[in-house]
Each structure stands twice: as C-alpha cells, then as structure tokens.
C-alpha cells in the first residue's frame, strides 16, 4: 500500500505534464517550421532565407479586433529594429487577400504581409489563438510565443527582440 502511494504521486505529476503537452504548439527551442508564401506585392518569401536575422511572425486577420490594435505597435517595432537585423513578417489568414492588403495599407503597415488564405502555415504552427506572435532567433529556432494581444505586451516584445539581437 505504501509503495502504491509513493508511486502514484510522481505518476500523477507525469500525467499532468503530458496532459499539458498534448495542447502544446511550437515548443520553445525547436526549429521553426519552414514555409514559402506569396506577399501582398506578389513576390514569394521563404522563412529559411531570413536565417541570420531575428524574425517575428505575427499571425493576423482583418476580422480580428486585437490584431488590428496590435498592428501600429508592430509597425513601430519594425521601424526601430529593422536596420539591426530584425525582420517582421505579418501572416494574414483572410479568405479574401484583397481585403488584407487594403487594411494593411490603411493601417500604414511597412513590413511584408504574407498571404496564407489556405491557412497552411497556421496549421503548421498549430496556432490556438488570434493573434499569435512567434519570435525566431538567428538560428531559426522558436524562442518566444505570444498568444493573443494585450495592451502593453509590446514592451515585452521589445525586450525579447533586443535579447535575441544581442546573441
């Protein structure tokens, strides 16, 4: 009986961890899945080509309120760190790419907007919230993952980009 109870506690903890993992999305320090998408301008862009730079992937849509709120903040980050080896890619999941391009222009977005209307890349990254922001380091590994948008989280983005740029 005593043996049973001593085994049960760690076993339960292991299961708890596993249950947590069952819901996980790209796990930190795993390589970021590669993809190629067309931009709003028409050219193709591949994630692997960005290696050597710190990449922030922001998954957004025109119908998502918090995504629209986040856009100007991301624009500021892009302007600040673009010259230091930072690349920001906005991956849009609208069914209608024209609407995405129109809204991006209206919000004054300068960073590349990639069109993922087939939602392949979203599935690849196993996203479970909108918007989602993934920070990838110079070696192509996923380092930070942000689900949703809260006012003020751009400070955290700023700190994390700086950390990755210093490496």
């Amino acid at each position, binding site marked *: 009986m005593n043996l049973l109870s001593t085994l049960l506690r760690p076993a339960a903890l292991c299961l*708890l961890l596993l249950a947590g993992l069952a819901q996980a999305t790209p796990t930190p320090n795993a390589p970021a899945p590669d993809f190629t998408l067309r931009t709003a301008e028409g050219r193709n862009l591949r994630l692997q080509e960005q290696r050597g730079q710190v990449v922030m992937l922001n998954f957004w849509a025109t119908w998502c309120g918090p995504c629209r709120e986040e856009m100007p903040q991301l624009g500021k980050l892009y302007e600040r760190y673009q010259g230091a080896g930072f690349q920001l890619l906005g991956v849009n999941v609208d069914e209608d790419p024209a609407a995405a391009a129109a809204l991006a222009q209206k919000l004054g977005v300068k960073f590349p907007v990639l069109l993922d209307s087939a939602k392949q890349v979203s599935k690849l990254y196993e996203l479970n919230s909108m918007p989602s922001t993934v920070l990838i380091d110079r070696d192509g590994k996923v380092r930070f993952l942000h*689900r*949703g948008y809260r006012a003020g989280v751009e400070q955290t983005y700023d700190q994390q980009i700086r950390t990755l740029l210093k490496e």
Partner: protein
Amino acid sequence: MLRRIGAALGSLGAGLAALLGHGAARAVDLPADTAEAMVHIYDGGGVKAVGPALLIRKNIADTVSLSGTYYVDLVSNASIDVVTTASAYHEMRNELSLSLAYATRDSLITLGGSHSQEPDYVANSFSVDVSQEILSGLSTISLGFTRGQDQVGMHDNPSFSDSASHWQYRVGGSLILSPRWVASANLEAIADDGYLGSPYRLARVFGSFIHENNPRTRSSRAVKFRVIGDVGEAGARSAVHAEYRYFWDNWAIRANTLEAGYTRYLGDAFLVDGFGRYNHQTKALFYSDNAPTETTYFSRNRQLGTFNSMSLGAHLSWNAANVPGKYDVKLHGSWEIVRFDYQDFTDIRTGKPYAFTGHVVQLYMTASF
C-alpha cells in the same frame, strides 16, 4: 479524517484548475462602444404605440462596460377591449435601464436594473447575468436571474393599489458547430406572484360583463433553440437563421413559435434581411370568450386565448460612414406586418372571431466608436 478529505479535495481542485486553465489566456470581449437611437412605431388592432428609444454603451478601462437605455412609449389605445368596454385613452410610459458589464478572462458578468413608469403602473427590476466561455471559446454557457417588483394602480380609482412580483431564471448555451454554423439553446423559468391581470379588463360570464379574476400566481417555462449558418461566398456574405420556442405554464397555456430569416450583404454598404414568424397558442384553463359556468378564475383576455399570429418582415441597413478602428455609423429601417387570428375571442361588434393586422416599423441609427 477531515484533514485527509480536505487534502483530497485540494488536489482535485488543483486538477480542476489545470483543466480550466488549459489553452491560451484569452479575454472575453466586452460589448463594443455603441450609441443607438430609434423611433419605433406600432399600429394594429386599434392600438398605436410610438416613441423614441436611446442606448449608449461605453467601455471604461477595458474591463467594465456601462450602458444606459431610455425608452418611451406613447400609446393611443382604441383597441377592441377598450372600444367595446370603455373609452379610448392616451398614455405615456417611460423606461430607464442601466447595466454594468465586467469581463474577466473568459467570463462576462452583467448587472442591470430597470425602472418603467406609466400613470397607473410602476415596474422595477434587477438582474444578474453571467456568461462563461468554455471549450477554447467554442461554447458559451450563461446563467441569469431577474427579480421584478411592480406597483399596480388604476386611473380614476386611487383606492385601488396592488403589487406583483416576478422571478426569472435563465440558463443557456451556445455552441460553434463548424466554421459556418452556430447553435444555441435557452431555457427560462418565470414565476409571478400578485396582481397579474388588468383592473380595467372585463370578462364575460353568462353573457354579462364583469371584472376579470386571474389567479394570483403563475409559473411558466420556455425553451428556445436557435441556429445560424453562413451560406454565402466570400464576395457576397449571407446568413440564414431559424429558431423554435416552446412555451408552457401552469395556466395551461401552450405556445409554439417558429421564426426564420435570411440576411444578405448587397455591395459594400447595404445589408438586407427578410424574416417571418409563426406562433400558435392554446388557451389558458380559465379563459373563455363567454363563460358558460361559474369558476373561481375567469378571464376574457385575448392574450390568453387560442390564436395564431403570423408575421413577415424586411429590414434594410445602410452603412453611412465607416472608418475602420475609429467609428462606424449605420442607418436602418425595418417593417414587419403581423396578423393575429383569434379562434375563441369574438368581436362583439360583428359576432365573428376577431382578427387584425398590425404593422411594426423601426427606424434607427446604430453607431460604434
């Protein structure tokens, strides 16, 4: 012994917390900041009720939303009851409602109160509603409670004074079925206590008119199922909705109501809806057009009789101004034709079962900012 049970419950609680905490931290959206202004018109069966209505809703600090509604009803009543048993009258009813909504991680708590005043009736109510998102936001469960207290008076009779109390309990849930379909189910139980009739209304017993006598309690249940589906394409979004409600109470009234509608975008700026409603009700136990026997309770209130009501309506909205992220103004017009066909209420002027056609018109503006 108790300590061990406590420890077991504690770890069960930890397990439950792990369960509810699964998935991303996600915030329930507060309702958007809105302002609405409306002119509402009803004309049917000799009753005309028109008036303005206003609604303002504002978010404060992104966690609390305050809203206020002011509603006025100017009634000219020359309905069949009034015309055959009394004389036409005009009346004004004012209603003010306030509510406060508080959003936490996945739930929304709303507190509300309302005060309705007319010369011979004052109604106050207080409500609490909680709605909670579950299943990663694919489903919402909601619970609600309203407590109402009314003061009943009578125009030319200051000695008449009575009260009515109401309790409403609501439970409901909505579920996203697919990227295009959503369904919901709602159940509401209402209990009333006190003076539940009208001091002016007469009933007919053995051919002569006397004041009605309603039971002083009523207990009712209603269950409603709704479904909405997106049936359009990316260029021309459209949706279809259908709902069914079954109502039953301890006065033996049974009602089946069916509604359906189709909504469609026309270009960038216009939205058009078409909808219909059908309701069939069977009478209350003590209702009679002309009671042949003497019973404790008797009423000739056609609202409690056997009837069909059918309606068809259309609604058009025009997006007058739209600045994404800043404000959006829409103008709306809606017109519904409703027909009531009574099976056991006769028009004593003609001797035939009574029926009438009414019109419900709404002209309003909605703005979100």
